[in-house]
């Protein structure tokens, strides 16, 4: 099995923006963290908190229902035929039966028994089946519920309804998010399964991380991600760049420890014996590194990709609009988004398997001093994405 990997993109061309494409190809997100220097946060916080992205915070609900509940006419007409919702069931990919719904496409990752009993048209799972074995363990069913074949009462619809009532009748835990919410009163009858549980909003948690070590975010001199030929020297420069990029990635993670705290090792006051840890922030040659304060804005819930993009654009716009050129030049900002790991499709809705993962999601860093934009994308071992 392939190990998981991390794709790093460095974009120094201001006319291109690879991050937008990545944000829009990642559907099921559950955590979002923005990191930026506290000084910069104070400059933009007022206009940011009144921006549309923060005015309409995404809400989500945890439901206990059988899968068949989505076929009830209220739910079906409001959320599947007309609206746009995210729905995902609890469980582990390639171990449990998983149901997900986005953009009107219902996906079911099923074991052999459930697949045969359900009698729905699907295909063999790409990764969960051992090569050479005749018997298939797992299947993936993909149904476009918005297609005309799924009119209420049509043959396909009844087939799905039958499968739901005979094979998946037990209520299970789902996360549900309405990506296109309408004002409350426009819905004459609220959908029954949804009215029974409270809706939870993704309220931002702002934490100020004071007295932490901050690297310069400037790559070492001569280090390049690519190019330079085959010489030993060029190879060395590429290696240095990779190490630097991974250090930045690791540092970002160390600012995102639980309960809004930075890791013990990035605190300025930390003096640790090398027997316990040899970690240091940044390179020794990084002269611009210092002690500072970083602000972290965190959201959690079931977050749709459009909202994530809106928020990121708002943050970048606020920084680009700053009057002082020097501040703008020295500004850095990053956004990390964590995705749900049990969804049977990953990046660009390409099928993936449940093993060999080291998390799911991406991190974007806008580097200071016109260093460009860094993008880190996590890809599992059983996932074709490049």
């Amino acid at each position, binding site marked *: 099995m392939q190990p998981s*990997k991390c794709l790093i993109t460095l974009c120094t061309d201001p006319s291109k923006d690879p991050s937008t494409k990545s944000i829009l190809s990642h559907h099921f997100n559950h*955590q979002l963290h923005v990191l930026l220097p506290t000084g910069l946060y104070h400059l933009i916080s007022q206009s940011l908190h009144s921006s549309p992205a923060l005015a309409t915070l995404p809400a989500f609900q945890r439901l206990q229902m059988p899968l068949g509940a989505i076929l009830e006419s209220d739910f079906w007409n409001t959320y599947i035929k007309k609206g746009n919702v995210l729905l995902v069931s609890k469980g582990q990919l390639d171990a449990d039966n998983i149901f997900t719904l986005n953009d009107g496409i219902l996906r079911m990752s099923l074991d052999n028994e459930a697949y045969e009993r359900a009698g729905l048209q699907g295909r063999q799972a790409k990764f969960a089946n051992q090569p050479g074995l005749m018997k298939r363990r797992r299947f993936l069913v993909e149904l476009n519920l918005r297609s005309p074949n799924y009119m209420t009462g049509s043959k396909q619809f009844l087939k799905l309804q039958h499968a739901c009532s005979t094979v998946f009748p037990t209520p299970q835990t789902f996360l549900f998010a309405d990506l296109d919410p309408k004002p409350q009163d426009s819905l004459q009858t609220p959908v029954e399964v949804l009215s029974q549980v409270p809706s939870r909003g993704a309220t931002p948690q702002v934490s100020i991380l004071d007295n932490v070590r901050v690297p310069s975010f400037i790559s070492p001199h001569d280090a390049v991600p690519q190019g330079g030929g085959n010489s030993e020297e060029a190879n060395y420069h590429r290696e240095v760049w990779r190490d630097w990029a991974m250090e930045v*990635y690791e540092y970002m993670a160390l600012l*995102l420890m639980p309960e809004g705290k930075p890791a013990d090792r990035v605190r300025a006051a930390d003096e640790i014996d090398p027997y*316990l840890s040899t*970690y240091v922030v940044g390179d020794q040659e990084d002269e611009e590194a210092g002690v500072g304060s970083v602000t972290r804005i965190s959201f959690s819930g079931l977050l749709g990709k459009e909202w994530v993009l809106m928020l990121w654009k708002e943050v970048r716009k606020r920084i680009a609009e700053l009057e002082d050129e020097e501040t703008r030049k020295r500004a850095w900002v990053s956004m990390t988004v964590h995705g749900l790991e049990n969804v049977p499709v990953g990046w660009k809705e390409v099928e993936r398997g449940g093993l060999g993962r*080291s*998390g799911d999601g991406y991190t974007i860093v806008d580097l200071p001093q016109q260093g460009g934009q860094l993008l880190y994308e996590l890809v599992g071992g059983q996932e074709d994405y490049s």
Partner: protein
Amino acid sequence: MASTVTLLLPRVDRVTIRNSEWGYAILQMIFEPPYTDSSLSHPDILTWRTALSTALKQYLGLFGSAMHIDILHLHDDEATIRFPRTELTKFSAAVSGFMGAVDGKAFGFKTVAMGEFLMGLLGRREEVDLWAE
């Protein structure tokens, strides 16, 4: 001279990291029977280092006790640990099979998340809260 020119041109570069330098783990220390006083069940960094050394030595002998470990963060009864990625399998086996004794209590480790990229592990850790009641 040619290389300097390419550096200045705006461009998009892509690099794939497969063989990262480090592996990471978020571990929880579990005591049986559990401490009733919660402050005692949050081990300090020296306790962690000693416990991990013991576990590694027990499973891997002298090579295990020589394994490079960095303790990056402590949070309640959890520790975030970094070690060479090439030792990931060994580290994982050593901590998951370990059972020690202290204070008349048995203790062991529970793996919250383990893998090549620390950022990914954090997402996995947080996902648990999302599904919890």
